[in-house]
């Protein structure tokens, strides 16, 4: 207690002492100038010109003004209605020409908001980007979760869509990864409070991940700032960057009402080309022969029945396009109502929204109700309150995720025999209305799954904060934010018996399944801080902030799974076979306390310095973790500094009219990652049962020095803007170095443990971000903006306790090795297929089988490259066969405005990343009886056949489909993410402020050579699982029509 108080007292006393009254005396220095409209070069009348709070004036009719300033190095701020406000550095000049740009264009004169403060980008010392989704572009108001508001225009931030399930959202990566085994998602703050986007618990729905950001309506987001370099004040939570989201606030007292609605046509995705009935029949025939069945026994199988007079002949003579059956076009709708207003005591912004999305898989949907009430209340001159309360309620019916499973209709549709159909047919082939059961190949009836299966996810979150501000003096404010977040997710799953292939279990075959879970996460936050701001003379600007932030989290998850109830009508837990019943849960408690300090200092308006530091403590850290000890707990130390030099305000450049801004930035700081598990760093005991009696045994090999991962971020950047801000450019070079990597370190067997968690190893990410914005055409009637962002990064593993290892994910081996990038695909290299047995024999190569025997290859086997050159194809021949990290990613966006019309478009691209197409592997390995892709028609069938597709062999004894470069593809793509044309109706009455109609096309065109259904996907947020396409539901094309009305 005492130590914390001491620190705070020190901060506050220091702030208090330096607070002194400022004398306002006449200086006699006058500056004259002209304010002009940048697009027309016409003077701007009645523009307000300020020199801090020292003096102010307005421009004349001819745009001229004259104002007294404190120094020739002072700053003038010019504001005019309809224009961006502008800060102008005098830099010794006595006469200035100021060109004002219309609102809406990119400018460094824009404000950027952080948790509790805002400042112009101009003065930013760090690598941060800002976007204003609410104001800038309705195109970004497409239905979707919050990340849609900043996906695209921010260099260095990649929002990789997880899949095409509605509301599934994106995994966010700011400048790649900071961790291998811990969380890689950035810290998100909504109106100053941490909005936890981590996914807790385990989903009962295979292949589905909840998306906390889907609770925030894009339309509620007013402003987003993304900080990509180190923000040490967030300590061990900021290693993946920070995203500040500011939701709608009222800034004027007049009441305004905005209503919008839109409808979307969701278009079913393209089908994967699969074998038709006849091709599939041939394939099956061939496969059964290799299984050792005789030709006679195959011929007697019902699907081979050639005699129409025989029973069941018609039932096996269909040609069903199963993919068409599970995917369908659908519709989504969305409504939003926003009311803003207030009086001189309180301003409020209320928004209510409803979103009802239907997915492209039949029966799937996502609906959301969201409510937000933000108010700013002035109790007195000195005491104010910002209250932000939001609530959302979402429900999702997930009929399919596309993941390999006998319960996934999409996966089953991909492998289901096309000669069957979904209804029970009689001997004449006439279909009954009853759905057929699973077939003789143990493939479920996808239609039965769609009809009888339930997979539901319900989530709500109450998220609210009260931020009290007490302005003690003109320069000194004390604030305290109290907030809470209550998040609850409920999932219920029922997988029917009817029509579904039984799964095996250790005990008995599984018929139907009932599963449910409930997850509650409760967080209390408190952020107490003191802010001191002062201009010490006109050359020195100082802003000091010190505070303490803590959060207390409790999490509880309970789940149960029950199997084999008497029939599909009995769907409640507790009615299954008691031997198969499973239940479990998680209880988590953790708390953080972060003490932080931030100092911004500006000298002569050219030299900017930010110093910040925090002490970050967490209940998760071990008792001997790195850092300082306060009251028995370990606090990590996170310092940082950022410098910037506004070169353009130096006198030698001030008169260069072409350059509006030239700023060089440098920052270095430490952050960390506390995602190390709640109790991993404690010594603990766990239950060990002895029959039904509970025993207790030591649970871990305790590592008391386990603490946060460390991440040191260095950034060098350049902000440049020229030609009356017609072109702006930001370029950053960065290096992020992760050390103290959170890892599971193997322990010697005599400890009795497999290993322990420790901080060993690390890696470095280096890269660059480039962002260019240009106003190509700037006439009063036509404005055309064009922008592009490009970013690139590479990783390199610096150290690992075991130097090298591989992880296995869906058959892929992912290599982590010192000196190499993270997440490499490690497998066999191939070179076609042996045309004949003789060619195979002549190669002299032997194939090492699972039981260690070596056998020669045969005709139709894949030619594997013998890298180890011992004549045997085995583990030793594996090599790096791909790198999922793209060479660069980015987006090009444009906006054309003319005569009430606005055309927006954005094109996202990713180049050079490689993808493990697991879906193609599972549909092209020709070793199981499931349907295969059309490409397998070229499979090797006879001696001497030259082809690149190997033979079909049941069970694949030769390992032709092992993890090799056969399954690695170029994942480059360019996607027209959005094209929107909107038209503002020419009505402007007192009743209706505006009315706008618009039409969007989303994901309309994708250029790629990738063979899978969608080149943009994310299996999960972990560094090692990138570039693995498990066959998730692809994102679909959408056409949206909408209307907005302002009252």
């Amino acid at each position, binding site marked *: 207690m005492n130590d*914390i*108080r001491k620190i*705070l*007292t020190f901060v*506050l*006393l220091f702030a*208090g002492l330096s607070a002194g009254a400022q004398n306002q005396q006449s200086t006699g220095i006058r500056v004259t100038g002209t304010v002009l409209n940048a697009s027309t070069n016409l003077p701007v009348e009645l523009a307000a010109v300020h020199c801090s709070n020292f003096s102010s004036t307005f421009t004349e009719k001819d745009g001229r003004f004259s104002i007294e300033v404190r120094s020739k190095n002072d700053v003038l701020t010019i504001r005019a209605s309809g224009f961006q406000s502008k800060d102008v550095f005098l830099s010794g000049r006595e006469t200035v020409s100021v060109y004002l740009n219309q609102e809406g264009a990119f400018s460094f004169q824009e404000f950027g908001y952080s948790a509790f403060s805002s400042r112009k980008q101009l003065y930013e010392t760090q690598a941060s980007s800002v976007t204003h989704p609410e104001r800038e572009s309705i195109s970004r108001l497409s239905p979707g979760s919050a990340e849609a508001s900043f996906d695209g225009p921010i260099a260095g931030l990649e929002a990789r869509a997880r899949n095409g399930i509605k509301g599934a959202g994106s995994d966010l990566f700011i400048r790649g990864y900071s961790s291998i085994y811990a969380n890689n998602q950035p810290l998100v703050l909504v109106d100053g409070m941490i909005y936890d986007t981590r996914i807790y618990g385990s989903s009962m729905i295979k292949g589905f991940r909840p998306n906390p950001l889907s609770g925030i309506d894009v339309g509620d987001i007013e402003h987003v700032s993304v900080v990509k370099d180190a923000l040490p004040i967030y300590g061990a939570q900021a290693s993946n960057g920070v995203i500040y989201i500011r939701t709608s606030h009222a800034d004027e007292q007049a009441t305004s009402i905005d209503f919008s609605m839109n409808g979307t046509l969701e278009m079913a995705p393209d089908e994967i080309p699969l074998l038709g009935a006849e091709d599939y029949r041939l394939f099956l025939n061939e496969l059964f022969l290799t299984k050792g069945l005789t030709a006679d026994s195959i011929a007697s199988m019902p699907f081979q029945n050639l005699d129409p007079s025989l029973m069941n002949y018609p039932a096996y003579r269909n040609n069903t396009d199963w993919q068409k059956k599970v995917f369908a076009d659908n519709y989504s709708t969305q409504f939003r109502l926003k009311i803003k207003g207030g009086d001189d005591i309180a301003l409020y912004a209320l928004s209510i929204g409803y979103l009802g999305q239907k997915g492209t898989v039949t029966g799937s949907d996502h609906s959301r109700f969201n409510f937000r009430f933000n108010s700013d209340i002035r109790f007195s001159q000195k005491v104010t309150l910002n209250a932000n309360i939001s609530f959302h309620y979402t429900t999702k019916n997930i009929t399919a995720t596309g993941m390999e499973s006998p319960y996934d209709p999409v996966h089953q549709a991909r492998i289901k025999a096309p000669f069957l159909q979904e209804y029970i047919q009689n001997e004449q082939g006439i279909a009954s209305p009853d759905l057929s059961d699973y077939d003789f190949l143990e493939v479920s009836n996808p239609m039965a799954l769609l009809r009888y299966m339930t997979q539901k996810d319900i989530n709500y979150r109450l998220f609210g904060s009260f931020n009290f501000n007490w302005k*003690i003096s003109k320069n000194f404010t*004390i604030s*305290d934010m109290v907030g809470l977040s209550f998040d609850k997710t409920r999932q219920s799953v029922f997988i029917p018996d009817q029509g579904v292939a039984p799964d095996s279990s250790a*005990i008995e075959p599984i018929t139907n399944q009932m599963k449910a879970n409930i997850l509650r996460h409760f967080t209390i936050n*408190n952020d*107490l801080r003191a802010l001191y701001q002062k201009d010490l003379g006109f050359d020195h600007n100082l802003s000091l902030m010190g505070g*303490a932030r*803590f959060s*207390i989290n409790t999490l509880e998850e309970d789940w149960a799974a029950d199997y084999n109830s008497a029939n599909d009508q009995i769907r409640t837990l507790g009615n299954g076979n*008691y*031997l198969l019943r499973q239940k479990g849960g998680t209880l*988590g*408690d953790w*708390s953080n*306390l972060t003490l932080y300090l931030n100092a911004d200092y500006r000298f002569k308006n050219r030299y900017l310095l930010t110093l910040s530091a925090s002490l970050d*403590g*967490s*209940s*998760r*850290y071990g*008792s001997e973790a790195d850092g300082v000890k306060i*009251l*028995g*707990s370990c606090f990590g130390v996170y310092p940082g500094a950022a410098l910037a030099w506004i070169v353009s305000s130096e006198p030698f450049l001030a008169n260069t009219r072409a350059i509006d801004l030239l700023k060089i930035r440098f920052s270095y700081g430490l952050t960390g990652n506390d995602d190390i598990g*709640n*109790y991993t760093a*404690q*010594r*603990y*005991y*766990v239950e*060990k*049962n*002895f*029959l*039904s009696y509970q*025993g*207790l*045994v*030591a649970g871990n*090999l*305790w*590592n008391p020095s386990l603490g946060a991962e460390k991440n040191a971020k260095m950034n060098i950047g350049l902000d440049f803007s020229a030609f009356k801000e017609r072109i702006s450019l930001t370029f950053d070079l960065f290096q992020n170095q992760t050390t103290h990597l959170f890892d599971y370190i193997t*322990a*010697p*067997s*005599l*400890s*009795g*443990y497999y290993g322990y968690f420790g901080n060993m190893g690390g890696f470095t990410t280096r890269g660059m971000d480039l962002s260019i914005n240009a106003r190509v055409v700037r006439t009063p009637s036509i404005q055309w903006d064009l922008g592009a962002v490009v970013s690139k990064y590479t990783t390199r593993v610096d150290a690992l306790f075991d130097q090298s290892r591989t992880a296995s994910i869906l058959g892929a081996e992912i290599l982590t090795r010192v000196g190499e990038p993270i997440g490499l695909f490690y497998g066999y290299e191939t070179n076609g297929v042996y045309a004949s047995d003789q060619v195979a024999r002549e190669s002299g190569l032997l194939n090492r089988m*699972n*039981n*260690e025997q070596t056998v020669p290859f045969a005709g139709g086997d894949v030619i594997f490259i013998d890298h180890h050159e011992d004549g045997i194809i085995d583990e030793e021949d594996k090599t790096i066969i791909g790198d999922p990290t793209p060479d660069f990613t980015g987006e090009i966006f444009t906006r054309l405005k003319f005569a009430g019309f606005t055309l927006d478009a954005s094109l996202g691209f990713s180049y050079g990343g490689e993808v493990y197409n697991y879906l193609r592997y599972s549909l092209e390995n020709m070793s199981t009886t499931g349907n295969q892709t059309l490409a397998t028609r070229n499979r090797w069938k006879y001696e001497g056949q030259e082809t690149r597709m190997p033979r079909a062999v049941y069970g694949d004894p030769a390992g032709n489909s092992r993890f090799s470069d056969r399954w690695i593809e170029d994942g480059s793509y360019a996607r027209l993410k959005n094209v929107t044309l909107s038209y503002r109706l020419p009505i402007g009455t007192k009743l209706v402020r505006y009315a706008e109609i618009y039409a969007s096309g989303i994901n309309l065109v994708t250029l790629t050579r990738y063979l899978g259904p969608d080149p943009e996907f994310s299996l999960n947020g972990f560094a090692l699982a990138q570039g693995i396409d498990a066959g998730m539901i692809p994102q679909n094309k959408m056409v949206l029509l909408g209307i907005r009305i302002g009252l």
Partner: protein
Amino acid sequence: MKIRKLISIIAIPAFVAASFSSCEPLLTPDADEVLLPEDVYRNIDDADAAIRGIYGKLMDLAPQYIVLNELRADLMDVTAHADLSLIELSEHRSVSNDNPWASPRLFFSLINSCNDALYQFGQMVEKNRISRELADVRYSEAMAIRCWAYLQVSLHFADPEKGGVPYITEPLNSIESLDPAYLEKFPYLDLPTMIDSLLFAMESIPYKDLITDEGLITIMDGYNTDLMYIDKQYLLGELNLWKGNYHQAAVYFKTIMERGVSGNDLYDLHKLPFDASATLDVTTSRYNSGYVRFYNNDRLSAKNMWPTMFYETQTNNYHNEWIWVLYFDELYEPNSLVDLFAKDGGSYLLKPSNLAITNWNKQVQLNTFAGDFRGYYFNYFGLPGSFDIVDNEPVIMKHIYRYSQYNPDFNPSEKIGKWHLWRSGSLHLRYSEAANRDGQHRIAYSILNNGIRANYPGADTTAAANDYTKRQQTFLDFPYDFDARTTGISDVPPNLRQPWFRNMGVRGRVYLQPLEVTGDSLTVIESQILDECALELAFEGQRWGDLVRMSLRNNNPSILADKVAEKLILSGKDGEAVRQKLMDRKNWFLPLQ
């Protein structure tokens, strides 16, 4: 001043929640999911929980214990379904790094739990959390399990450089205890030195009797716990036998044999009694195999009751036979033995070796029929034996009788079963081995073959035929005192039933002819005992230890090497190379890694 006050107003409430009390660290995990050290070892219930945790971990060892002790020896072989990890053990190849069967980790995990409990029990007594008496019982239990585990580790593993295994006697709780400087204080002991240490540790425990404590002796899920706890006297007997303290070993084993004090227990408990009722009733069979009364020459009248000891639970017969047995229940962890052995419901990875089958088939019964009830002996009244023939393939049944068609309540989804460790059969063979080495060849012979009564017709052959005062007794001091008299009304003394009158020997119980001893009694009988162990205890996880013990005692590695080589040769493998390899004692041990 004003500011200072203000800070107090705002700051204090803000931090109260984070630091509930001033003596605790500021940020303490409020652990609900796990138990922190302060939440355990608080009272007697926690002490019992520690013992149960140890036994829970012991259960995890069942499959590895059987695989290491049997597959590496001569009686068990791999099937075509086995993978490389099992083949490596069976054929004594060098093991791959990731061979799960060749990792001592689970043994050390158990040892570590024992060490933790041993340390904490001491602390509990010091802090007056439990009484010395209650602590002693639990301390001795944990120590016995630790010694058992160390005996197993030492039998199978040795550090390739230092030799032997480290004798770690303190809990390794944190990574600091992995520091080589800390680990240095635990010496690496080879098998004989380890046995010295274990013997010393076991002789020093304060409580060597059976547990009677209410907290531990109870009924769990319908199973009596009395047979689940390790028999410390048996372990002491074993360790003494390993050490060469034959007399002392005999003392411990004989003490167990004499546990029956009244009623039928006096004659039946751990005494290998004969089937006094001679009916077809399993419940009274005392696991005697043979033929229906008066149909001794009818092959179809064979009744094989001996295997029912692996099938039954909780009967009188069962309690007379079993000393240490643990249960797999359908409600808890799956019974991994099913996977190893069963053909239906399992993966059928292991089977009896051709050598084991040959051993049984060459036995001769009292009626001169060939074959052994303990191998595979088809019959209508009992069970087939240690293995069964399913679809012309031999399937080891000892571990899976409960999970087989022989169980009328068989439910394929209920993977129930038992882990068989010690029983009267092994007790008598061990005792016989100790007695033989202690110079009591006749006693050893009697126990091994057809019982005391048959082998002690009388010291005084001149005495009257009905005078039993000088007959059917050994007239030796404990532990070699046996009185097997049963007399009629006209005998002297009349109507006498002495405790050992029902004993019929290991071979006698399964209707086998007694063996002939020609040559040096000591070595011949010892070799016969080793062979009998193969017949009686096959697949129960005793074999490797038996081979190693005999080889070490006789300083003759070929005892072990020949048997393993023969197994491989009979299965068509390169047994000669393995024989050469195993002639070097160093190659008996898997690398400790």
